[in-house]
């Protein structure tokens, strides 16, 4: 009979690897570069965190380096995705056709405010 904590940790690791797989699947299927940045960073961050958490539950004596890796992934992934998205918008990578609004576009800066905003002014 195996320890019940090992089985729980292995199940959490399996869930994390499924999240990694779904993130990579979205990387192939998404239509736009910004959607790819979004799915390629959020889902894989959660997947990596769950995988490391599962190994942390299986091997509790390795907690130091595993917690350090988790904090490192949690900090650096959003920063790199943000910088990549900003650079992509700066060099003018086109958005997909069904995009509703692009608030960083220069043409949208002179938009006439609608009725509610006029009333507030």
């Amino acid at each position, binding site marked *: 009979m195996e320890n019940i904590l090992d089985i729980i940790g292995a199940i959490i690791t399996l869930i994390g690897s499924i999240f*990694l797989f779904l993130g990579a699947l979205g990387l192939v299927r998404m239509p736009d570069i910004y959607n790819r940045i979004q799915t390629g960073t959020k889902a894989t961050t959660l997947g990596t965190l769950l995988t490391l958490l599962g190994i942390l539950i299986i091997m509790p004596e390795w907690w130091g380096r595993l917690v350090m890796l988790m904090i490192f992934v949690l900090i650096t992934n959003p920063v790199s995705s943000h910088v990549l998205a900003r650079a992509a918008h700066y060099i003018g990578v086109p958005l997909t056709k069904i995009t509703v609004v692009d608030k960083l576009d220069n043409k949208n800066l002179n938009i006439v405010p609608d009725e509610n905003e006029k009333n507030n002014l």
Partner: protein
Amino acid sequence: MVNILLYTSLVFIGLAIILAVVRFIKGNTTIDRIISFDVLTIISIALIAMISYMSGRIIYLDVALVYGLLSFLSVIIIARYFEKGL
């Protein structure tokens, strides 16, 4: 039981690596390739942690940490190069 679950998650990680390499080859722009490189690095961190558990050596976690540091630095430098130039 534990080994079956861990090998199944290794299979999922392998499929994720294959899909990221597909985007890396097919990518329309350079930013696409940088994103898939970043995703490959993140997947590799999880893979190295699992290999470190399976072989029972804690030293591989240091390898994962240094790998993640270098990848983060390279992504930041490439994005800054696209934005303002070096």
